[in-house]
């Protein structure tokens, strides 16, 4: 930071300025008495001492006095002085020159000190910005190290949050935070002692305070994130409880009510049959819900191990359709001929497809649920569409989250989450496309192995 001004250049400047002034005085001698011309050398003294300090200023003063004496004070060409008044003039000149050198040198030193402090203050401010504003403390420390190196003109400075010892090339300066060692500042071994002192006296304490503040901030940030996560998980838990209790209670209410009604003796055979069918339907629904809950907990525990085998998408879709009650509009299935075989857990994929179909049927009203399968490079696409109300763009991803239901109480909020779980466990993907008001299409992407089994493929092609 302290730009040392070369003494050689100072010497040269002193010599040149004295020479120029000596020459100029030849002209001045025509108009003013010689005794008065000495004051012009003060310019040289002022110039040199303000830039190169007191010592160089004094040297300039002596050189100026000598030159003045030799070239201008009679007898010229010699270092002797004839007249007494010229002695006095020379002495006054020297004293004044020394005084000016001193003042200018001191002013220069103060200016330099002020400049140094300003640079250090800039450095501290910059480090504060880096350490307190940055997201990652380690990254910020690297940047701060580079900044310190630039300020002190050092080849490299690294600030580490670990304990490192001095080595052959580098000197370790410990960084203390709250009384214990929190890290190390590594500077080159040949760092100037003045720079070292500035670092230790002023830069390190600032750095220590900043690291302490940054660590505190990180701690608080972590706490905030944890608190938020906790609150969110509580919200999710409440949603899960509400959803499960609603989904369990609805079939249970229907069953209890219907079962209670059966005990009436006045009931007609027809009414009795209707109550019995309510009980049967709702029991199936309840058991499907329990299956779904078990599936979901298995998926969430990562306990789903697909038993991969060759299977055809046509068979998967057919058995999924058969496992469901037929919706009012029915299922409209169109599967391309000669589709490649998949290698996956057939039972799991069937459940995934059935869940998506069931979900689509719920929103389809009297319209049919469309099922389309076609081949794409290295994969197979299964599109299941409904003509329901559609889904808003921001909801599209959330429909695959467990217990996310549109809030009308109709869905279990589990089916699509389970479908995604099984699909992903088998290397597939699921996504939703929707235009509000025009229905929703759920797209299942299934990976197709490059090598198809020869015999099975032949069979499938038949």
């Amino acid at each position, binding site marked *: 930071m302290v730009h040392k001004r070369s003494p050689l250049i100072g010497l040269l400047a002193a010599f040149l300025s004295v020479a120029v002034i000596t020459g100029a005085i030849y002209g001045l001698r025509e108009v003013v008495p010689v005794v008065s011309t000495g004051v012009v050398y003060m310019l040289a003294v002022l110039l040199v001492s303000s830039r190169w300090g007191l010592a160089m200023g004094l040297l300039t003063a002596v050189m100026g006095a000598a030159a003045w004496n030799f070239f201008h004070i009679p007898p010229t060409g010699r270092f002797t002085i004839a007249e007494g008044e010229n002695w006095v003039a020379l002495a006054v000149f020297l004293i004044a020159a020394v005084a000016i050198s001193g003042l200018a040198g001191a002013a220069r030193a103060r200016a330099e000190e002020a400049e140094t402090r300003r640079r250090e203050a800039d450095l501290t401010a910059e480090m504060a910005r880096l350490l307190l504003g940055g997201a990652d403390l380690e990254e910020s420390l690297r940047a701060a190290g580079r900044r310190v190196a630039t300020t002190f003109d050092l080849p490299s400075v690294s600030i580490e949050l670990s304990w490192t010892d001095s080595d052959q090339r580098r000197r370790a300066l410990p960084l203390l935070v709250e009384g214990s060692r929190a890290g190390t500042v590594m500077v080159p071994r040949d760092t100037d002692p003045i720079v070292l002192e500035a670092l230790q006296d002023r830069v390190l304490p600032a750095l220590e305070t900043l690291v302490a503040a940054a660590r505190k901030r990180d701690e608080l940030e972590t706490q905030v994130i944890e608190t938020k996560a906790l609150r969110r998980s509580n919200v999710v838990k409440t949603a899960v409880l509400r959803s499960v209790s609603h989904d369990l209670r*609805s079939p249970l209410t229907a069953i209890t009510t219907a079962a209670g009604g059966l005990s009436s003796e006045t009931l007609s055979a027809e009414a009795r049959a209707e109550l019995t069918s309510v009980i049967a339907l709702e029991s199936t629904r309840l058991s499907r819900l329990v299956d779904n809950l078990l599936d979901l907990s298995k998926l969430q525990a990562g306990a789903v191990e697909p038993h991969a085998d060759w299977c055809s998408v046509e068979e998967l879709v057919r058995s999924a359709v058969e496992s469901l009650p037929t919706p009012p509009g029915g299922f409209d299935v169109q599967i391309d001929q000669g589709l490649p075989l998949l290698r996956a857990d057939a039972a799991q994929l069937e459940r995934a497809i059935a869940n998506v179909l069931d979900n689509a049927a719920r929103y389809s009203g009297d319209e049919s649920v469309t099922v389309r399968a076609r081949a794409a490079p290295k994969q197979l696409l299964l599109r299941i569409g409904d003509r329901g109300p559609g889904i808003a763009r921001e909801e599209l991803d959330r429909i695959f989250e467990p217990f996310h239901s549109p809030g009308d109480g109709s869905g279990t909020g589990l089916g699509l989450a389970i479908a995604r779980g099984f699909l992903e466990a088998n290397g597939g993907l699921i996504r939703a496309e929707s235009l509000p008001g025009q229905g929703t299409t759920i797209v299942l992407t299934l990976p197709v192995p490059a090598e198809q089994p020869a015999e099975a493929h032949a069979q499938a092609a038949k």
Partner: protein
Amino acid sequence: MTRVLVCDDETQILRALRVILRDAGFEVITAQTAQEALDAAALQAPDAAILDLILPDGNGIEVCRSIREWSQIPILVLSAVGEEEEKVRALDAGADDYVTKPFGPGELVARLNAALRRAGRAEEPSISVDGLEIDLAGHRVVREGEEVHLTPKEFDLLRVLARNRGRLMTHRALLGEVWGHAYEEDTHTLRVHIANLRRKVEADPQAPRYIRTDPGVGYRFAS
């Protein structure tokens, strides 16, 4: 034949209720959404309504409030554990009673009949319930032949409860009718007056026969 409107979004619950209520001698009309319920209530003039609290396009509370704007038919709401707040709001919005899911059909039919009886009652100058005589016009109360002295507020409270006997009155409804709407949140006042009233009219205030508590919701006078 008494016509009952039943509104629930669950098809199977609706089917079961239709069979059971028909068997109990009611004519049943059904609805699956709040809008359908309001339309049916307006067009088919039911004598009573049974509403599920949670409906796809709204809730039973709003349906209660809308029906109450023009009709005094008895309204029962179906609520579930965990829906206490909604239940109280539905009662405040004008519902007469609630039945908690899952419920036995016997209970539902009994509550429905009680509500219908209440609705059919004419204005009465005096009420007599199981040994307690309340002379509404003369402001006198006689229990087992002995006159009971009540403060004016205690009498007002007893009168409101007795005129709605069998019906669950929420804290809010009682406070509003007896003390005025500014006091609707002042449940402590209500609790103190109920305790005083019980001491005076009940044989055993610890096991009240006339004024029953529905915890967290309100009080019901025995019918």
